[in-house]
């Protein structure tokens, strides 16, 4: 793969994106909507159901997994333990950001080339299919995970402002950094690669969005596993998960290249 050609695709995608107000606004504001929703849910749950959460068998299981991963949490007052549990869940909730952006913007990536008839001249250049698809995926994934980082920072700020500053040492842990620095880029690339596959197989924008939503569903499931507390990720499991996601990224890229049938795209799109 040629890095210069991939960079060229990324720069073009960004130039097109900057001229598309709708997608630009979506990428800029959707993450904050997701963040606000997560924050409100956490505050309401903590305020209205703190004790009830402590009494609930399901959450007791999740709390015991949290304490197993972070023994220092056991030293906190009971309601603060609930606070740490709830605040920590939003970390994984924020990993939904790149996936949500991918459903919208990656759906357009190849369909747009088909509709504007720009794909054939592009395929007549020396660019390889793998470079084209990776370039398109990275062009979406990079701003998506940068937005995830921004939102993570804003979230920490919101936690401090709302009077939970004392919980930060239990929230912004090694795992927090691993989630955002390692897992978020891997999930962002995966979401966009899957989005590009959906786009390359779709007939139009609507069809692409439906297809992409269906394809990225397993990523929601992965995040849901953590949010529900069924599995509690330690730094080691997070690193392993991130490595696994990067391996899946590589496999999905190969799959995307195989599924990208340039002949049928060129011939059937008149």
């Amino acid at each position: 793969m040629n890095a210069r050609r991939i960079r060229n695709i990324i720069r073009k995608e960004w130039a097109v994106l900057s001229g598309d107000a709708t997608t630009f606004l979506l990428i800029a504001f959707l993450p904050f909507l997701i963040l606000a929703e997560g924050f409100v849910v956490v505050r309401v749950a903590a305020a209205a159901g703190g004790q009830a959460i402590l009494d609930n068998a399901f959450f007791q299981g999740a709390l015991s997994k949290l304490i197993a991963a972070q023994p220092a949490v056991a030293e906190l007052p009971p309601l603060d333990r609930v606070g740490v549990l709830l605040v920590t869940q939003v970390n994984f909730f924020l990993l939904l950001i790149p996936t949500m952006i991918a459903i919208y913007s990656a759906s357009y990536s190849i369909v747009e080339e088909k509709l504007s008839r720009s794909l054939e001249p592009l395929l007549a250049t020396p660019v390889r299919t793998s470079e084209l698809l990776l370039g398109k995926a990275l062009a979406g994934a990079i701003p998506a995970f940068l937005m995830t980082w921004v939102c993570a920072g804003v979230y920490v700020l919101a936690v401090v402002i709302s009077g939970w500053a004392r919980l930060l040492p239990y929230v912004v842990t090694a795992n927090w950094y691993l989630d955002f620095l390692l897992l978020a880029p891997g999930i962002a690339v995966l979401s966009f690669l899957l989005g590009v596959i959906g786009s390359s197989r779709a007939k139009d924008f609507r069809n692409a969005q439906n297809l992409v939503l269906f394809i990225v569903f397993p990523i929601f499931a992965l995040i849901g596993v953590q949010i529900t507390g069924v599995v509690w990720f330690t730094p080691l499991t997070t690193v392993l998960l991130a490595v696994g996601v990067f391996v899946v990224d590589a496999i999905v890229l190969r799959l995307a290249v195989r599924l990208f049938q340039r002949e049928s795209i060129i011939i059937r799109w008149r």
Partner: protein
Amino acid sequence: MNVIEARSLTRRFDSTTAVEDVSFEVGEGEVLGFLGPNGAGKTTTIRMLAGIIAPTSGYATVAGQRTDGDVAALHEVIGLLTETPGFYEKLTARRNLEFYAGFYPHIDPAAQVEKYLKMMGLDERAGSRVATFSKGMKQRLALARALVHEPKVLFLDEPTAGLDPEAAHDFRELVRRLSHEGRTIFLSTHNLTEAEELCRRIAVVKTRLLALDTPENLRQGLFRRQVVVQLAALPAGMTEDVAKLPFVRSARADGTRLIVQLADAEHDRPELVRRIVELGGQVMSVSEEAHSLEDIYLSLVHEDTR
């Protein structure tokens, strides 16, 4: 030296054969006209030669590269003007060209972009979005895109289709300039005047290759040379008498014109005039009947239909 070689190129789409057993060569610096009706397989042939789609059978080489293998190297030496220009309409003309130029390692993209924007007369609109361009401007920009990496071989698919006469004329001038620069040009077109004006050889296709030669050789191969004798008046029985002459293959009257096909037009023409005068004809002028490229094209295509 041949720059393009096609050997038994065939392409089927499900049960439809778009191109069948097409073989030809194009020499270095040659402009080859590729003529045929809609659905004749012109675009499919170009796509196979440009390595965009693979042949079902047969093969082709362009600038020494197989078109059905790893096409990245092939794409460094060819330029393709597609039937529909296809640009990123929200980007400027310059940004569009910079994007395509950015894929080629052996050029200075910025310098090449400026060179071709200027050559195509688009330098003053380089900062405008392509969406604001007329069809002719988009076509010139598409040619700039096909040329920005200085390809040895240029594939032009219906380059003047839909252009107004002035834009089409300007475009032909550009193609002529490129030809003089020594580039090999494969020109698919419906426009017979354009083909005759620009191309040394013409290929007529209709799924199969019906003919490939210079326009003059095609004319001679299809239509024997005919002599037109303009008479002051056509005497009775003159046509039949002329037809009986030993060196005459056929003769017919058209008003006061006598149209005669000779066994050897160069050698027998003076004798024909002498005999017509002897038969009482008053010869006003003698000329040769000309056949246009359109006659050749229609004859080939209709003959194939029959």
